[in-house]
């Protein structure tokens, strides 16, 4: 398969125009000793039909959520994506464009990102949003970087924060010079730090947390602010039709994994990093930010703004190194949010909560299965304890056609996280409970 359009005549005449005799001459600056004296050790090129057959074969070897009823979550969720999202986000004018360096030719992407920022602010009740980051985990890293300066360098992490997020923080912290400190979370939540010292930059709370449990964000915020630290709230965008927004709970910075907004599971990516903050933080924010301005005729238009924060201007003093971000996922999220609107987002949240509650009752009614955190309020995900080990039970459920959740070994060998989205029907939940009963019997 080839896409270079050159005919033999083209090549000959172009070489003549350049003034060289052969294509090889164009590479003569490469010292002979460094030239690859052999063909690459890769198979020869193939046709479109062959590569698609090969990929269909690989895809066919996966047993994905089109063939398994999905109760897995832990940061990635099987929500419904309306057809309109990719019918529009997939338009090639969006799809094949790049960062809007020439705003006059990029108003489509720029305005969409402006609308994305606006919707994120409406969701979070915060003042400003950027135009996307890589994913939820790296968004948290960037949020922490916004909070650290001079004395204030410590990072306290509530015990209910997803270990994958903590692990990511740890990796990046090695470069920035901090190690996240994890707070005790009795009963799978809480653990508000007693006193937050002057050396603490940020307190991080995830709400709903990794166990799906609702946290007392206000309590964490109060503690953080008492010590002069910032409160970073890791939220779930699908919860914000029904749960109080980060801005109302005292969060200074809110970050989220935006996958649930219009993006397929895609085995983990591309997803969407969302970051919003209070206006005072705007010059510390990472990544692209779109602003509205006027053109020479006084007509409104959109541009990338506050670029003095960014690597291409500020270089080593930039707020972050991010360049390519996840714009297309932000476009999809914008379309999905507009499709939902305020009522749809609320309906979505209510459905998730109701179905999760139903599933919780059904599963914990199975003999031998217990709630991991009895009495803890939750949103769309919850933790149960299953006899025989979470991994073994999960595998046995696979044979019955269910992706039965995600084991949480850090919380105990028998803890299984179960997520229930609006996509799960009562019948599916009942069948799942029955299968679980068989498995643990």
């Amino acid at each position, binding site marked *: 398969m080839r896409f*270079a359009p050159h005919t033999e005549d083209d090549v000959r005449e172009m070489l003549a125009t350049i003034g060289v005799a052969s*294509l090889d001459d164009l590479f003569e*600056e490469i*010292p002979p000793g*460094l030239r*690859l004296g052999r063909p*690459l050790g890769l198979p020869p090129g193939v*046709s479109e039909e062959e*590569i698609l057959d090969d*990929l269909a074969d*690989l*895809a066919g*070897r996966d*047993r994905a959520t089109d063939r398994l009823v999905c109760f897995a979550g832990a940061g990635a969720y099987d929500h419904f994506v309306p057809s309109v999202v990719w019918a*529009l986000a997939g338009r090639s*004018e*969006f*799809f094949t*464009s*790049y960062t809007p360096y*020439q705003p*006059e030719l*990029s*108003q489509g992407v720029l305005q969409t990102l*402006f609308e994305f920022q*606006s*919707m994120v602010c*409406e*969701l979070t009740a915060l003042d400003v949003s950027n*135009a996307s980051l*890589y*994913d939820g985990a*790296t968004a948290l890293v960037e949020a922490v970087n916004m909070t650290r300066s001079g004395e204030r360098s410590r990072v306290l992490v509530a015990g209910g924060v997803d270990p994958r997020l903590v692990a990511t923080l*740890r990796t*990046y912290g*090695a*470069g920035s010079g901090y190690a996240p400190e994890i707070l005790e979370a009795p009963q799978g939540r809480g653990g508000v730090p007693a006193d937050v010292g002057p050396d603490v930059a940020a307190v991080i709370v995830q709400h709903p947390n990794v166990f799906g449990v*609702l946290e007392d964000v206000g309590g964490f915020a109060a503690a953080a602010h008492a010590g002069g630290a910032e409160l970073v709230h890791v939220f779930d965008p699908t919860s*914000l039709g*029904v749960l*109080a927004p980060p801005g109302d709970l005292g969060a200074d910075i809110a970050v989220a994994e935006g996958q649930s907004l219009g993006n397929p*599971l895609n*085995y983990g*990516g*591309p997803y969407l990093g969302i970051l919003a903050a209070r206006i005072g933080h705007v010059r510390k924010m990472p990544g692209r930010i779109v*602003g509205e*301005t*006027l053109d020479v005729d006084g*007509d409104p*238009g959109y541009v990338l703004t506050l670029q003095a924060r960014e*690597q291409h201007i500020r270089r080593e003093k930039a707020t*972050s190194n991010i360049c390519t971000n996840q*714009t*297309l996922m932000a*476009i999809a999220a914008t379309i999905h*949010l*507009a499709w*939902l609107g305020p009522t749809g987002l609320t309906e979505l949240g209510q459905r998730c*909560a109701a*179905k999760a509650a139903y599933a919780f009752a059904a599963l914990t009614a199975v003999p031998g299965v217990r709630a991991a955190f009895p009495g803890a309020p939750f949103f769309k995900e919850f933790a149960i304890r299953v006899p025989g080990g979470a991994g073994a039970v999960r595998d046995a459920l696979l044979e019955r056609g269910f992706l039965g959740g995600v084991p949480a070994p850090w919380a105990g060998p028998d803890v299984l996280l179960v997520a229930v989205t609006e996509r799960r029907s009562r019948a599916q939940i009942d069948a799942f409970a029955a299968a679980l009963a068989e498995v643990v019997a």
Partner: protein
Amino acid sequence: MRTGAPVRAQGPPTAGSIAEVSRPGRSAWSFAPLDVDPVDLPPEHRRALPPGLPEVSELELVRHFTRLSQMNHGVDTGIYPLGSCSMKYNPKLAETAAAMPGFSRLHPLQPDATAQGALELLWRLEGALCELTGMARATLQPPAGACGELTGLLMMRAYHEARGAPRSTVLIPDAAHGTNPASVRMGGFDVVAIPADDRGLVDVEALAKVVDEDVAGLMLTNPNTLGLFERDIATITELVHSAGGLVYYDGANLNAIMGRTRPGDMGFDIVHINTHKTFATPHGGGGPGAGPVGVVEELVPFLPVPRVERAGDGSFRLSEDAPSSIGRMHGFHGNFAVLVRAYAYVFMHGADGLREVSERAVLNANYLAALVRDVFPLAQPNERPMHEFVSTAADLKERTGIRAMDVAKRLIDLGYHPPTVYFPLVVEEALMVEPTETESRETLDAIAAALRQAAEEASSDPDVLHDAPVTTPVRRLDEARAARHLKLRW
């Protein structure tokens, strides 16, 4: 004169924001009726007022974003010669592949046994990238090039620490892309800039002076930011190695050398690849991308986790057990669906095809340079550029006061997306042009003619450049105002 303008979308010229389209009581959503009892969340947790999202019908939604898409230029609309971005044709077949449910509906935390196809795809792609770059193993986790850089720098740091001799500085050419110094800082190093000599190449003498025991490593792209091949690269990498440092290859310009030479053979220890450049994964308006990072044997222990490993029985698994690993760089396994497209690109082209890609990319850049260099002189007139070239409008500005930006905006009215302007910063009035291999000779002839026309008009009719663009949805925008009066949301 026939305007050639596309059909204009319905309604008044200004496309209002979707908030303006919104009407209370409208909606597009639909869900299956709730088939279980509703629940009340604890009062203290409930949201008081629903979020102020737009309320629109599905058709209004479709029209709004269809219209916005029409106000955007993409590779499918025309040449997009941004230097350092490799804006080449994005094969449609890659979308067919990425949409396969076995990939698109796979949950990242499914047991490995249910994801063997995806894992084998990652395994094969890793192998191909290692062969292409001359590395031993690679991580496919970084979601973009900048993250790949940081991944590499964190491995550098871990490497030196493991040897009990932490180091504090990283060398980069002053012309380097902004992500390089920014990543160096995030990696916890200080930046030491190294100058270029009058060939526009790394000044080896100067380099020798700054290379010492405190230098963790050097970051380079080759061909460099001017599109020139660093001929002394073997000496350079040798120099750094001899002082115990590592050398990082920024793969943004890999499109120039595939099948001709490999970073590994040049002496590089760490290499990142921008799949959204070299392998044509769609840029999506600014992302997503993917920034796989390959390393030499010695650095394999430090690669991020999870890694794809192959068991004796030929099955694949995600492995976290790697005691010296720097850890995870992404919440899950990186931008998988982007990697599916990269796989399609790499294996569809194969050994011969990838070599041809670079050949034609270099051919196109040199051809276009030959057509315009008399009016827009190359920043390094005596050097042969590879897949891209940097011209300067400095003397044009001298003579006429017309700046690179004016030329860029005039190009828009002539029907072409401009090249990158004002980068690299070290070149005055820079025009950085990367046509890529998928552009036809006629297109190169046409944009060359447009560039020459603009240069000519700079003296004959300067206002047509000052006033440009006039054919676009908006005209020149006041960026200073945007930063002064922040309006970042409706």
